[in-house]
């Protein structure tokens, strides 16, 4: 049985359907992420799980028991709020002790478990500080300790890393993964940052306009996006409108208007004549000089339009014959100074026949 289950959950605000018939199951010990642009319904789902909001249709079950009618204070799950919502008039230790006091635990047990929780997030030295005396990263860790100390069945995290700067965020991401592994409590994380979702989660549900577009492991989301929206939302991608010319069990011939034939592969039975999108990640494209030969199925000539040197990699924007601009990422992995194809250089972009993906929608 799944730890938490959403069954056909729908939530309406007036005429707006914020969550449309969403079903999903979260397993014990899982790091599950709801990912989507703002307004996609991910926070509404989180608030319904926490009990601050209730579904109009459908049901939410914890260990197979319906949570409907159970107020937030009686649900065995805790939330780490976006603003942390630390109690400003209580010390760090007081904040962390709060859920244990609410549960009516004896004093010596509270003291011991608060100490353990603070040790877990490396904040023992700040136990007697007040929230306004500590840094943003420390506040984040207090909020985590406060959410975890009562050993909830599930920890809900609402855009919890959003308020941190980039460096600190990366550090907190690493800490969060380690922490989740250590405590073994299932995390449900809500974010609009796709890199964060990929880095942290066991599984990610990508949401758009109240629906789940795809729910999968991070690497499968990246390499096997279900549709154009997911491909575009997760990472960088080139999206080319194509038409199926011919399809066999292993090989797929696509025609891109003004460009020519693209060789791909797809195990699905596709019919010639249908149209869709060809999705190709920039790092799977190679760039060669026009004279160099490459033993790759797909080869198109173009001109370097722009390039962005990013240190470890260089992003090229290559304009193809039909005016389509394709993005290619080349690692600067050779020792010494990076060698560039300069702007205006005539080049050829190439990729393996199994590099890209044909998407029907």
């Amino acid at each position, binding site marked *: 049985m799944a730890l938490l289950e959403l069954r056909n959950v729908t939530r309406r605000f007036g005429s707006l359907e914020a969550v449309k018939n969403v079903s999903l199951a979260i397993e014990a010990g899982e790091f599950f992420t709801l990912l989507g642009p703002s307004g996609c319904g991910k926070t509404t789902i989180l608030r319904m799980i926490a009990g601050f909001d209730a579904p109009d249709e459908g049901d939410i079950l914890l260990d197979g028991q319906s949570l409907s009618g159970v107020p937030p204070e009686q649900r065995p799950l805790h939330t780490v709020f976006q603003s942390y*919502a630390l109690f*400003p008039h209580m010390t760090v230790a007081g904040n962390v002790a*709060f859920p244990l006091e*609410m549960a009516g635990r004896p004093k010596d047990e509270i003291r011991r478990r608060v100490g353990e929780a603070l040790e877990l997030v490396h904040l023992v030295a700040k136990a007697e500080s007040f*929230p306004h005396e500590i840094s943003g990263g420390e506040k984040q860790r207090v909020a985590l300790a406060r959410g975890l100390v009562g050993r909830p069945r599930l920890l809900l995290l609402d855009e919890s890393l959003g308020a941190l700067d980039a460096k600190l965020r990366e550090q907190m991401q690493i800490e969060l993964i380690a922490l989740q592994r250590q405590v073994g409590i299932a995390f449900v994380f809500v974010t609009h940052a796709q890199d964060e979702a990929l880095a942290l989660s066991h599984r990610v549900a990508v949401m758009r306009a109240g629906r789940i577009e795809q729910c999968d492991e991070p690497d499968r989301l990246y390499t096997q996006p279900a549709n154009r929206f997911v491909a575009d939302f997760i990472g960088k991608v080139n999206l080319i409108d194509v038409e199926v010319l011919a399809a066999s069990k292993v090989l797929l011939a696509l025609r891109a208007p003004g460009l020519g034939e693209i060789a791909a592969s797809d195990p699905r039975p596709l019919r010639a004549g249908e149209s869709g999108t060809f999705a190709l990640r920039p790092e799977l494209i190679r760039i060669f000089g026009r004279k160099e030969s490459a033993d790759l199925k797909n080869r198109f000539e173009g001109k370097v339009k722009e390039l962005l040197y990013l240190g470890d990699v260089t992003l090229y924007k290559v304009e193809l014959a039909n005016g389509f601009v394709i993005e290619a990422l080349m690692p600067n992995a050779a020792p010494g100074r990076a060698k560039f194809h300069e702007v205006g250089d005539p080049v050829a972009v190439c990729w393996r026949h199994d590099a890209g993906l044909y998407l029907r929608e």
Partner: protein
Amino acid sequence: MARHARVDRLARWGMTLPPTVFLLAFVAAPALIMILASFREPGEFGGLAPWNGASFEAYRFLLTDIIYAEIFARSLLVAVLTTLICLVLAYPLAWLIARSPKRRRDLLVLLVMLPFASNFLIRIYAWIMLLGPLNLLFSPWAVMIGMVYVHLPFMVLPLYVNLERHDPALLEAARDLGAGAWTRFSRITFPLSLPGIYAGAALVFIPVFGMFAVPELLGGTGDILIANLIKEEFLQNRDWPLGSALSILLTVAVLACAGLATLAARRGFKGTEAVS
């Protein structure tokens, strides 16, 4: 640099000069006159007797006659009771206003302040009309009703300003972590509103302690407070030194209360400055 510093200093002086002059002329000087007057002998027909060395007669008289201690204690009691009643009445009201939608909030605050649009004495006379038929006039009840009525807005406003600034996420967090409605109030809302409570209490307690008009108009002969006593000493008994000494005692008592409250507040406010 030096020029700038000098201009800065001049500007600062220029800005602080008018209030400084005002305070010196209308607070410090009268207080000094009162202090000096309290150490003199009363003149035969009012005023002060010619200077004849410092006299402690007024203070000796105040401290030996039990009636003064009684009236002092009664004033203190009225001030404390009024403050508590105002707090109990104002808290739910301020809380409701702070939780109303933004547009209605401004209207409700305006309604709380509306009584200030008419004269204070006229409103007290209106209470005479209301309390007379109820047979409550010239009683301690009438004094308490009048005191609470006059000072309620001074409690509502600072409480509202404080409560309105509370982050609703804190209550959600408390609820999420297992706190029921009463615990959310006692552990989160109430401690966070302490600065508002202290501010409101000071704004009610201090003027009530020295209030003169309400007991004068609504109270009976047995309901006089320290301020009425001061008036009596100056105008009826023509004992200026005694009136001055009473005034000074009142001021010292108020300052002492304010000082104690500040000390208590410093301890209790730790962390709450961050939100209010």
